[in-house]
């Protein structure tokens, strides 16, 4: 039988009395992070900002695994130790791809922040990504899902050059870029063919599959 530790007891008590911090947050005069504001609806290219200068990267970029998430900051852990990422309603989460941004972030997720460095080494985030990946590789095992109301409409396997075989899921709102134009999959249901080499930018889900945000069909 699992031992109920002191930490578990504290966690139990804080969850039992969770309405107290909730009341405090409801009464706060500062604007809380609201999903509708946090994730703007305009669709842009989710490619992470260009990384040109190593110093610039070190100054503006931070990534690591989320340890604590609150409405105004995320504490991540990386090789430097713990770093605070400040977030606000000005933070551009997933470059405005609302349906991916709506998935939010959980403790343990890999967070990438881009923004302004503060004197205390924390980062005020202008951009924020959660579990973002960028795969380039050959496609195989394509299958479509014809069931109505399903959120995953197609799947395939991509053999990424660095990470190997990855299971990719396509949602109705996945953006498909064929080199000429880009449209949502539900507007133009085009999939890569077997053996095509494509690029996928997406978010790794908890089951290990990758949810494609943008698929570039031509490489």
């Amino acid at each position, binding site marked *: 039988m699992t031992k109920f530790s002191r930490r*578990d007891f504290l*966690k*139990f008590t804080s*969850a*039992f009395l*969770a*309405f107290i*911090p*909730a*009341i405090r*947050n*409801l*009464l*706060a*005069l*500062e*604007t*809380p*992070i*609201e*999903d*509708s504001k946090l994730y703007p609806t305009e669709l842009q290219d989710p490619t992470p900002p260009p990384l040109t200068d190593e110093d610039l990267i070190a100054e503006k970029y931070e990534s690591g695994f989320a340890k604590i*998430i609150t*409405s105004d900051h995320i504490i991540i852990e990386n090789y430097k130790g713990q770093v605070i990422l400040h977030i606000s309603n000005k933070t551009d989460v997933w470059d405005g791809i609302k349906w991916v941004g*709506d*998935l*939010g972030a*959980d*403790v*343990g997720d890999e967070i990438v922040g881009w923004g302004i460095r503060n004197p205390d080494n924390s980062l005020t985030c202008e951009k924020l990504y959660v579990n973002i990946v960028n795969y380039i590789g050959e496609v195989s095992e394509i299958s479509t899902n014809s069931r109505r*109301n*399903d*959120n*995953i409409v197609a799947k395939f396997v991509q053999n990424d050059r660095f990470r190997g075989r990855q299971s990719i899921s396509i*949602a109705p709102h996945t953006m498909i870029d064929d080199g000429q134009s880009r449209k949502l999959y539900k507007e133009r249901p085009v999939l890569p063919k077997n053996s095509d080499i494509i690029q996928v930018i997406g978010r790794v*889900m*908890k*089951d290990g599959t990758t*949810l494609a945000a943008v698929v570039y069909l031509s490489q």
Partner: protein
Amino acid sequence: MIQTAIFVLNLYFILILLTSGLSKMASPDYSLLNAIKLRNLFIPFGQTLYQFLAWIEIGVSILLATNTSIRLATIANTALFATFLVSQIIVLSIAKGTNCGCFGNIYKIQNDKIHILVTAAQALLSYIYYWLTTVYSEVPNIQVLVSLIVFLGLCVWILARRLSRLAIQAKNTSKLNQP
């Protein structure tokens, strides 16, 4: 002694249901249902259901605060916590590490075994509360008055602060929009 227990449970459930309901309403786009949607589990009208729950919670807290139809209110209270318990167990089995959604986007709690234990304790307490009201139906007027003051005081306070915040936001937006 038992009347004190009833009073404490009454206040606890008023506070938790009112806060939880208002938090859900303040987070219309937030739902842990979003997290499980992508795991191919289709929930019809998920977001509507989430907002409907918020209204139910506030409705039950009003009944508890006013000591109106207390039997019905305590049954609904127990049913609510039993529903939360079942849904949290289902969600934990599908998606580990998601936020529970109890307080929407206002206060996030990770849906894990401890949180399920808390909800189980709350469901048990809500049943005990129901049982106590079946045995001791008489509630002193002073207790009803205190519950009502707590309920109305919190409602007015939250409403006033949120209106102030809207005013501050509007002022900031107009400043930003100035050339």
